[in-house]
């Protein structure tokens, strides 16, 4: 039982990471119908920026905030410069641009910071936290807390601020949004900025566990795809739920299904992806999309 609870806790901590990245994917998908394959590599790159700042002697949370700001600005610039010209291009063109971005960020990180594995600090300490007679990693708690906080802030932003309302309106009906004077192009860029920011949080929370190297997020991205699809690629709330579900499912199946172990865990994500696409392509909470031809 104690092992089970510990595993669930670890699963939730991982799940928070998947939830964040899944939400970043969904935000961009929602407004552009494109899946940003480079989301994970952008997050990895952000994490390296944080690592550089911390190694330069900045306190953790200062580096954290600066990283968020830089990531946000970077996301906006990428949308304006790289993605914008392909806004109305066929889906495959966009896919190729995103894969190009993925490779560029991966190589760039390797070139700047080498492919050596690096330690990334956690602000929550390494000591275990005792709850009853079960021990949890403090970092797991902290990561869940930070993730939930970021998600809550985002939710409030989209729900209650005029800018959030305008961004949601742009995603739902771009032509009507332009006709009420919303600058839809900039809303898309802001969406990219926010997605990059969420990704940066996910990267900084997962790096202390997985250690930092240019392939940090490649596995995480697969789990996040699974999470986004499971919860519903059109549903931000659903994708967050999907993230936590996939996190827990991954850890528990690794522990309790004998042949999966540590090596085959990624299979769980792929099974979820294929299963969802076969059985319920719109996911648990997603809307069925209908297009007339």
């Amino acid at each position, binding site marked *: 039982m104690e092992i089970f609870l510990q595993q669930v806790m670890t699963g939730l901590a991982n799940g928070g990471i998947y939830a964040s990245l899944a939400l970043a994917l969904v935000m961009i998908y929602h407004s552009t119908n494109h899946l940003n394959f480079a989301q994970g590599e952008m997050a990895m790159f952000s994490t390296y920026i944080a690592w550089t700042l911390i190694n330069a002697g900045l306190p953790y949370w200062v580096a954290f905030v600066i990283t968020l700001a830089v990531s946000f600005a970077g996301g906006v610039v990428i949308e304006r410069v790289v993605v914008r010209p392909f806004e109305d291009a066929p889906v495959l063109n966009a896919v190729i641009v995103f894969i190009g971005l993925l490779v560029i960020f991966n190589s760039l990180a390797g070139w700047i910071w080498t492919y050596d594995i690096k330690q990334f600090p956690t602000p929550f300490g390494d000591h275990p936290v005792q709850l009853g007679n079960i021990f949890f990693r403090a970092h797991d708690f902290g990561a869940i807390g930070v993730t939930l906080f970021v998600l809550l802030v985002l939710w409030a932003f989209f729900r209650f601020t*005029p800018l959030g*309302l*305008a961004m*949601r*309106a742009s995603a*739902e*009906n771009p*032509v*009507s*949004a*332009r*006709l*009420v*004077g*919303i*600058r*839809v192009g900039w809303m898309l860029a802001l969406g990219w900025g926010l997605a990059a920011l969420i990704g940066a949080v996910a990267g900084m929370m997962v790096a202390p566990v997985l250690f930092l190297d240019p392939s940090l997020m490649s596995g995480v991205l697969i789990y996040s795809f699974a999470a986004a699809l499971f919860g519903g690629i059109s549903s931000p709330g659903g994708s967050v739920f999907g993230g936590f579900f996939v996190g827990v499912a991954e850890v528990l199946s690794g522990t309790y299904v004998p042949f999966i172990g540590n090596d085959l865990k990624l299979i769980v994500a792929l099974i979820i992806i294929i299963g969802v696409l076969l059985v319920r392509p719109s996911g648990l909470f997603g809307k069925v999309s209908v297009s007339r031809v």
Partner: protein
Amino acid sequence: MSALLSVQGLQAFYGQTRALHGLDFQVEESGITTLLGANGAGKTTTLRAVCGLVRTQGTIEFAGQRIDGKSTEDIVRMGIAHVVEGRGTFVNFSVEENLRLGAHTRKDKAAVHDDLEQVYSYFPVLRQRRAQQAGTLSGGEQQMLAISRALMLRPRLLLLDEPSFGLAPLIVEEIFQILATINRESRVSMLVVEQNASLALGLADHAFLLETGNVVMSGAAEEIRQNDAVRQSYLGY
């Protein structure tokens, strides 16, 4: 009266295809002008051209300024509100959120609140439905919402594309009466596109008749209504 909107030699293109072949027309300050014509005459395209939603050639002047070639967002911010055919409401948003989005570009918070009350007084049913999702409204209520959202911009010119589209005759009559009231009280100019010619001529003071992308007749609404050809082709008696 001077022209608020003045269009000269307007051509519009969908890809390589030219849909308008050099239109000239005006909308008077505080007046109601209607564009009449059959399906495919270019009425909707004309409104889309004014708003910069299609590629155009020719000059479009609004309040003395050239607006052709400007972005839709900038044209809207100059005071042109467009109620599209099929309404274009944000279906997953509440009625009140839709109205607030209509005032997105405005900074005068207090006046926005007054205008919200004003549109609720024009369309009391929207007040009852203020927290309801726009997608769940009836067709008539959605049209009222679309008009109200456009008014929230406090526009100088209101473009209306087929406000009678798909609605029951009684609702249509109600909406047209309120449009007349709005024009009288707030002096907002209107450019109305309609297939229902007798309705539109009842509301408007000027009319332009479009046929396959050309203006073939224009004049005071009353004159057009008396015209034999128009009567036989568009009014059906």
